[in-house]
């Protein structure tokens, strides 16, 4: 699934990360505006929330993950909304609504694959984080080996973390070389590169990291691991989105964007979609180019949709547990 979009990348081109100018205060003003300039209400809101579900990489990344909770996650991904709610929403599409992917640790890929098989939804891609997630502070050889193992086990999407030591010391060529090797290790699997924006120190570093990853073959650029102090913010996103636009202008390649960490409300989800639509265009609002890395978001969307469909607010127990 989704194999047709692969970024071939390009040679390391220092000119693309030279003289990067990012003005934080101006970016912050624009980011704040996006939420106020567009609004979706009523059936539009519901439809946008459904669209958001289709863009979620439903995620569990915890030390205590076991096959049982990974399996629950997979079944939730395959059937994110209850039948009752889908009926109320009069969803008659042939295609069932699922999340975009599930996202787990490499060690849980097998469990996920088994669960999805049981659910009859093997078409849902399994994304695996890799490369010493979340910090990336392990030898390159083991980071690459992790990727290969995850792919071997059935992951078709790999979320790698970049080397922040290199990034913060200005060794962008080093970042490029590593990511390029990771891309090779991914083979046919999609590669999402996590910039860990909360640890990059400046917006220009975020722009540079975005560019370097795209040059090295990233299919998606992703904000954060969810483990940093500051995760997906509209400010950071705007900078990455502008880099995606610039890269597209230069290479004609379309690169996807994945905000991750801290996205919890249906309202925010609609703003994210609107941001993609305004800044990059319609095409970038499908899960081909846009993903949410989120675990709690789905529950809030369910609640909002239930309210839209029934007119009353549900209790948590009205929603099936994921």
């Amino acid at each position, binding site marked *: 699934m989704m194999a047709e979009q692969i970024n071939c990348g390009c040679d390391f081109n220092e000119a693309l990360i030279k003289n990067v100018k990012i003005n*934080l*205060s101006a970016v912050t003003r624009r980011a704040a505006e996006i939420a*106020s300039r*567009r609004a979706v209400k009523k*059936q539009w809101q519901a439809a*946008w929330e459904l669209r958001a579900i289709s863009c979620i990489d439903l995620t569990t990344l915890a030390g205590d993950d076991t096959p049982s909770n990974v399996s629950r996650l997979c079944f939730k991904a395959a059937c994110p909304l209850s039948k009752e709610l889908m009926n109320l929403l009069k969803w008659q599409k042939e295609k069932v609504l699922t999340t975009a992917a599930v996202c787990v640790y490499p060690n849980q890929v097998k469990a996920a694959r088994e669960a999805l098989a049981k659910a009859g939804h093997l078409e849902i891609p399994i994304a695996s984080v890799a490369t010493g997630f979340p910090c990336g502070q392990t030898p390159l050889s083991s980071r690459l080996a992790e990727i290969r193992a995850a792919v071997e086990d059935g992951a078709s999407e790999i979320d790698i973390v970049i080397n922040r030591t290199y990034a913060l010391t200005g060794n962008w060529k080093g970042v490029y070389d590593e990511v390029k090797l990771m891309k090779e290790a991914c083979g046919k699997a999609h590669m999402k590169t996590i910039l860990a924006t909360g640890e990059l*120190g400046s917006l220009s570093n975020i722009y540079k990291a975005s560019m370097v990853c795209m040059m090295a073959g990233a299919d998606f650029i992703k904000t954060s691991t969810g483990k940093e102090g500051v995760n997906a913010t509209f400010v950071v996103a705007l900078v990455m989105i502008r880099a995606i636009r610039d890269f597209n202008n230069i290479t004609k390649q379309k690169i996807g964007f994945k905000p991750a960490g801290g996205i919890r409300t249906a309202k925010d989800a609609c703003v994210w979609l609107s941001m993609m639509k305004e800044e990059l265009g319609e095409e970038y609002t499908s899960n081909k180019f846009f993903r949410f890395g989120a675990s709690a978001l789905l529950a809030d969307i369910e609640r909002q949709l239930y309210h839209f469909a029934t007119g009353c607010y549900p209790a948590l127990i009205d929603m099936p547990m994921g």
Partner: protein
Amino acid sequence: MAGQAILNVESIFDNLSYGSAPDSESAALSWLNKHSRHFGLYINGQWVHRDAQITVESRNPANDELLATTVEASEDDINLAISTSREAFNIWSSLNAHVRARYLYSIARTLQKCQSLLAVVEAIDSGKTTRETRATDIPAVIRHFYHYAGWAQIKDSELAKWKPYGVTVILPHWSFPLLHLGSRVAAALATGNTVIILPSTLAPLSALLFADICSQVGLPKGVVNVVTASKDVSLLSHPNVDKVVFAGSIEDGQRVRKLTAGTGKSLSLELSGRCPVLVFEEADIDSAVEGIIEAAFFNNGLSNHSGTRLLIQETVYSQVIEKLKIRMSKLTVGKNFEKNNDQGPLISSEVALKLITLLQSPHGGQVYQVEGVPNQNNYFPPTLIYDVQTSSEVYVDEFYGPLLVAVAFRTVKEGIALANHSVYGIAASVWTENINIALEAASCIQAGTVWINAHNLTDAAAGVGGCKKSGYGRSGGKRSLYDYVQPNYQNRSVPRTINVDFNKFGTSSSADILPIAPPTDTAGDKLSVDKTYKLFYGGGQKRPDSGASYPIRSASNQVLGYVPDGGRKDIRNAVEAADKVARSWAKKEGHGKAQILYFIAENLQSRLKEFADLISAMTNKSKEESTNEVEVAIQRLFYWAAYCDKYGGLVQETSLYGLTVEKNESVGVIGIVCPDNFPFLGFISLVAPAIARGNAVVIVPSNKFPLAALGFHQILETSDLPGGVINIITGDQDVLTRTLTEHHDVNAVWYFGSAEGSKFVEFGSAGNVKATWVSYGAEVDFINNCDGEELLYHSTTTKSIWMPMGDVFAN
């Protein structure tokens, strides 16, 4: 849930369209209905309705529906508004400052409670989007009342030497009906004035709602009156109006200036602008593009702060234009009560018509317009014209609307030159990550506000207003308070009709240049040598163009000396000299200026007796009095030497994360016409603060007693003063006054001559909208008054420089 709505979900899921997110008009309509869709005048705390009055319709620009009718105030209504305002002034101005502060605070609180209603009333009447009235206009109005409630509280200590003018007429522009009203009314009330508001007929409703709010607050009767009329003449020409605050077009501003000339009414003008947006090559280009959108299309493009002249460094020109076009393509135009629209209808079809005419005029550029705009004649698409010629009408003409023109520049110097080569001076924005370029551009651009890497930021704590033809006076911050107060010693002369033939005033010299008996020496027994003075400009003594001189006689009719009969050409030369040096003098560091003023004082001290004798001989004042005049003059020089480096400006406490600096800048070239009652002290008291604060002056000494001032050049020549900073021209005072007033390179005129001359100066100043300060023929006591803050106010203008900061975004 409606079945239809549910059915649509699937198709919206596929196309991810925004759909409609309408805002409700209902609050506005029920308020209008409460008034039966008809408004009288709000005078003396009540709604005045009369029979058989002419009414004016107020329509919704979005659909042309009739919203309400207002009445056309009659002469009687105007008289009533003014007389009740005058009565209220006596009470209001004598209230304890704290009580006034409480009223302002209460207005702020009440506005806050009604903010949703205010937002929709403002939008429905003006065509502004509710998104903007909710997020920008109304919060700013509320903020102003809170800010000025503070000034009201501390007025007595902050403005100890000042008192309110009295009855203040406020004319807000239709571009910001309530915000203009709020910022001005708050300042006027805080300082103890009472106000009469005359809203624009294009959008009067929010002012009428404001009247309701004042009524709810329980403001004393007559403190705020709101009258509606399509003409302002009878209100503005009424003798009992003391202060006029106008916002609008340059043409209207000039008309108001002429209408009020010579009447003793103080005037503040905030007029149109064509603000430059300078994008330098080291800018964050994507952010600059967003800034341009904000600059050009905020408020439907209808603002004198709109950035309509886009100046882009050639190296990034095409990149910016391409990105801008793509960004503009995302703009949506339609109903203003639709949350997803970036732009609503223009307030009237006339505004759109002007844009259409401009678009059709030759401009040599390429046009990019946003598509999908409603086909109604008061809608106009966001429009970019790039590669235009700087001589074209679209580049030069005054207009309001969502239209901007783009021009390339090569160097920083050229960019600044292009920005300043304009009659407007209200605001500008500068886009670069290079702090050296940013600060230099901000410093050099002639405007009341300069934003660095931003546009349209405002706050009640930071002054807004113009220079050049964009007017004078400020709204916001402490500086604005001075527009609403006068020195305690000053009393407005009883209004009387002064007839001045503007075509004839000062057109020919009346100097007595017929031959007369030669002056005799004071000893009187032998023929003395002629004492013939010369003009002093450009740093040297010059013969007058006419070649003529006329005698100055002592009280006992002895000829004390001959002074040159300078004329138009001498003024022209002097202004040229002043203009040439003005910028470098303004840039000279304060300490350096102070050294020169101290040097002047020292040199005057050593010739004290000589000057005192001359004053005494001219004026017949006693030796003691004349000596005192020179001694006070020396003190003044010391005083202003002190102020050379102590009035640079303030850091304003706005909502910005960063610095908002209010820089006190020189006015430029000031023409000064000196009084007769203190022929020397008046001269020094005026010239010293002017040059201390970086201005260059062309000064006309006392008409009757010019010798001491004219002789002062000897001191200037030995005091290291750069040539052209002080230029002294004698001659027929009316001729010189006329020439100075009508000279467009003169930025301000201070006039201490006759009532007629005062009227002429105010009338003639309309030409380039220069600031004026005139005595209306009244004598000023220069020994005890005319120093300190008052002079600082007239010697400076302010520029708010907004400098956002920040790079730390996480951890």
